[in-house]
């Protein structure tokens, strides 16, 4: 691609009031943030406590805040689309703008909302659950977060500088190739995903090692909480499939900026190869985000039923079975490519087979509640809302796996309804359950219930109002990604209902956000460290957890370790391990992960606009950061015993 096709006139996006509005609000918000930080002299605090932190809990909190912000942005995208589709022949958005919005909606929701949300939950909970002081590689963990953060920033920047990508979140060639897609939007997509993808791979490796190597004494694999099993499965999936995405995106980028022909037919390349590679990553990706949700539901359902999880061994087996089988289902995203009946049959069967372990998990959650005492708290509400929702979503997934039937569902609103039902009803419900569940452990106070309940009901009911009509629209022949539709097809009423549902969900989100703000001021403090009468080790430490997590590393003798310890204490049997406090070895904070990722951002931004000088500067800074790190021997320190005792005493513990 020659440089002259892009010039400064492409730089600032003009001509659309929505974008001018965004420009203004970005400037206003930025000024406000700078002003507040300066006025309260918080720059040092921001740098020391957050930007340079390697503490898994703080990194988890930052992931969660980012995920909620991205949920908001992706949600606004969704509402704009639903407004456009509320009535036939609407002129609210033009085709180009609509195409950009559905592209950013999909990309943001999967890669910049669901992914950071699961990373948030695993960062916050996994080390505490396995009795570790941090993850295996805390410095790498900070790099992961900042790579994600700057990837997301680069992606969001496209909205006001250069224009958003508009070839769909799947970005299929040839539509995404430079022949049909000149603008920088597509480059933004490729580079933003590439940069945040590096962070994702690092997180996968980090948690894989953490779970295998950092467990407290006595915590055998089969004594781990199911959430940790889910994260282990997810980490394995990430390690195996994210490199495939990296390669696919890199080849497409080389096609676009260097004029190669990996995915164009003309030079002997093949666009089908991209589609295969994208979904070899893309299908396991949906399990990467759903397995942690399964893990959270296992914890939440067991805790609020006051009962051991039912069928632990078969829960573990089904997690692992899902993880393995999910590698072998990717072709079901394009049965209609005409791969031949043998290939289609194989992938139809492998897809159906995944439903079996998934179904078993649902029955096991039901059996966990059976003979228990079900406390319908807010996290439990999301879990209870999840079960029927995901049962339907999974069932329509089985319907879609029937290859010949899929010829009728493919790219229709039936498909749209299905994957929103699994991703919202599964992942979003799961992450919100996890957020309410672990909030006291993160911040030391419980989220209040009234707003949270309103949020749950509006979001949950809004979901059905929004998406059940979309199943029907699919049967009526409505295809996805159309910015307008004619009258006379019978689509109008259902689309209007769907739009109403979307706004109900939006209202639900506002209640959730309002509940968080209210609780920050008036939330009930958690002084016990164990507000839910929990079962796993994270509830054995005070809330919020001290930065070294455990003053003494616990010794685990059974599954549901904390539940057992509580029982033994009640019986007067002291748990083993109440020995002397020793100095704790901790990693030092570092600003380098932030600067390293910022350099990637600069290099990526340069590549988007073919400003190679900027790219060279960015990559030089990356190299410098890596080099400096390898000569840095001052990376850790010991917390003295006195300080630990003082901290524990401030929580009222000895």
């Amino acid at each position, binding site marked *: 691609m020659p440089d002259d096709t892009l010039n400064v006139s492409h730089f600032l996006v003009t001509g659309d009031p929505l974008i001018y509005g965004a420009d203004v609000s970005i400037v206003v918000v930025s000024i406000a943030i700078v002003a507040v930080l300066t006025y309260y002299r918080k720059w040092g605090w921001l740098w020391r406590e957050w930007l340079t932190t390697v503490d898994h809990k703080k990194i988890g909190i930052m992931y969660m805040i980012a995920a909620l912000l991205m949920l908001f942005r992706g949600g606004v995208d969704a509402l704009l689309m639903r407004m456009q589709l509320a009535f036939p022949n609407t002129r609210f958005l033009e*085709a180009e703008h609509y195409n950009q919005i559905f592209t950013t909606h999909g990309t943001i929701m999967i890669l910049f909302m669901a992914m950071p949300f699961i990373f948030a939950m695993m960062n916050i909970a996994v080390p505490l659950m396995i009795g570790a002081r941090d993850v295996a590689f805390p410095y790498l963990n900070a790099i992961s977060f900042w790579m994600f953060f700057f990837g997301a920033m680069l992606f969001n920047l496209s909205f006001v500088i250069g224009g958003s990508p*508009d070839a769909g979140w799947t970005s299929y060639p040839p539509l995404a190739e430079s022949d049909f897609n000149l603008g920088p939007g597509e480059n933004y997509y490729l580079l933003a995903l590439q940069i945040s993808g590096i962070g994702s791979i690092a997180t996968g490796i980090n948690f894989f090692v953490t779970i295998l190597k950092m467990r407290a004494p006595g915590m055998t694999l089969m004594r781990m909480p199911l959430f940790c099993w889910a994260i282990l499965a997810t980490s394995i999936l990430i390690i195996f499939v994210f490199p495939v995405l990296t390669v696919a995106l890199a080849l497409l980028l080389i096609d676009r900026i260097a004029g190669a022909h990996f995915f164009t037919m003309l030079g002997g390349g093949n666009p089908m190869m991209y589609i295969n590679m994208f979904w070899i990553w893309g299908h396991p990706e949906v399990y990467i985000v759903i397995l942690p949700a399964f893990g959270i539901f296992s914890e939440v359902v067991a805790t609020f039923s006051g009962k051991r999880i039912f069928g632990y061994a078969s829960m573990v087996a089904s997690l692992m079975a899902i993880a393995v089988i999910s590698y072998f289902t990717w072709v079901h995203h394009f049965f209609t490519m005409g791969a031949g*009946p043998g290939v289609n049959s194989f992938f139809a069967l492998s897809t159906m087979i995944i439903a079996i372990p998934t179904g078993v998990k649902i029955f096991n959650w039901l059996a966990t509640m059976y003979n228990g005492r*079900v406390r319908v708290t807010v996290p439990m509400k999301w879990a209870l809302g999840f079960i029927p929702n995901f049962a339907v979503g999974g069932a329509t997934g089985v319907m879609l796996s029937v290859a010949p039937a899929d010829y009728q569902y493919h*790219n229709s609103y039936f498909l749209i309804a299905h994957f929103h039902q699994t991703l919202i009803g599964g992942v979003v419900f799961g992450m919100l359950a996890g957020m309410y569940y672990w909030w006291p452990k993160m911040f030391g106070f419980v989220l209040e219930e009234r707003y949270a309940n309103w949020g749950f009901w509006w979001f949950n009911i809004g979901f059905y109002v929004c998406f059940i009509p979309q199943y029907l629209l699919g049967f009526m*022949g409505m295809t996805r990604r*159309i910015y307008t539709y004619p009258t006379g*097809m019978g689509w109008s009423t259902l689309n209007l209902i769907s739009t109403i549902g979307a706004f109900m969900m939006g209202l639900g989100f506002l209640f959730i956000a309002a509940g968080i703000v209210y609780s920050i001021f008036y939330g009930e403090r958690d002084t016990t460290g164990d507000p839910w009468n929990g079962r796993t080790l994270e509830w054995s430490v005070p809330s919020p957890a001290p930065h070294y997590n455990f003053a003494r590393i616990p010794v685990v003798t059974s599954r549901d370790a904390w539940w057992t310890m509580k029982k033994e204490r009640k019986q007067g049997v002291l748990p083993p391990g109440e020995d002397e406090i020793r100095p704790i070895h901790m990693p030092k904070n570092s600003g380098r992960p932030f600067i390293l990722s910022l350099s990637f951002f600069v290099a990526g931004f340069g590549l988007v606009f073919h400003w190679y000088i900027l790219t060279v500067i960015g990559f030089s800074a990356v190299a410098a950061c890596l080099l400096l790190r390898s000569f840095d021997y001052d990376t850790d320190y010991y917390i003295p015993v006195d300080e630990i005792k003082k901290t524990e005493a401030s929580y009222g513990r000895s």
Partner: protein
Amino acid sequence: MKYKAARWLRMLPVGAACLLLSGCTREQFLVFNPAGPVGRIEMHLIILSMVLIGIVVVPVMLILWYIVHRFRDRPNNRAPYRPEWSENRTLEIIWWGIPIIIIGILAVNTVHDTFRLTRPPEPTGKPLTIHVTSLDWKWLFEYPDQKIATVNYCYIPTGRPIQFVLTADAPMNSFWVPQLGGQEYTMPGMAMRLWLEADKPGTYFGSGANFTGRGYAHMKFDVIATSDPEFSQWAAKVRQTAPALTRSGYTQLVKQSVVGRMSFSSFPPGLFQETIMREGGMYMKHDISVLDNKA
């Protein structure tokens, strides 16, 4: 107060369902109103899969409702509380077993019909071939036997299997006529075969189903099924009255635009094959076999 609000909210889906049922008729659910054997096979599979998954989903909902009510943490709840009860081999065999049986039944039917649909639907009728090219943002239909071409609509005779051979001279799209049967991708440099058949006359809605950019939403077309004699009459009329599609005319057609219906009395011979080869078909052995089979 809290419960009152919740109960009110629970009524909403019921209201929504009523609205919905009043607004739509059965004919508008195109997938459930098939007009040919392929669409019917697919509809039967859809209904079978719905019944099979219903066997699992409906009980799950009922059991969930029952368990939450029976075991809810209330004072004086007399239901048993056994916090250590967590294993039961019989139960686990049941709920590993039931999904396996259901998936087994579905799998057999799926494989059978997947192979079935690659063959012409009714082996008795004489097949008709139509070459379909998706362009930005319109559909070109060429009739190699009748030597005519149309844009954004096509006629087919009822009772005869139609072999659509699909390609694209634009980004990948998908050819979908829900009432006749499921879709297949149109890809540049590729020739893909899709068998469909109409067994009653009518006008059937068709659309592009894979996103191709700005004008994609307008890529709708009609498939008009008539009796065989009427089809021949129509073809003859087009041959006599419509203008010819020239090579320069095709070059114009390929440019990005949204157009209405068009008819052409002829098209440059070998245009379809040339398009495929030019767009990369020279690398694909599979194309040549599809084209040779019925060129």
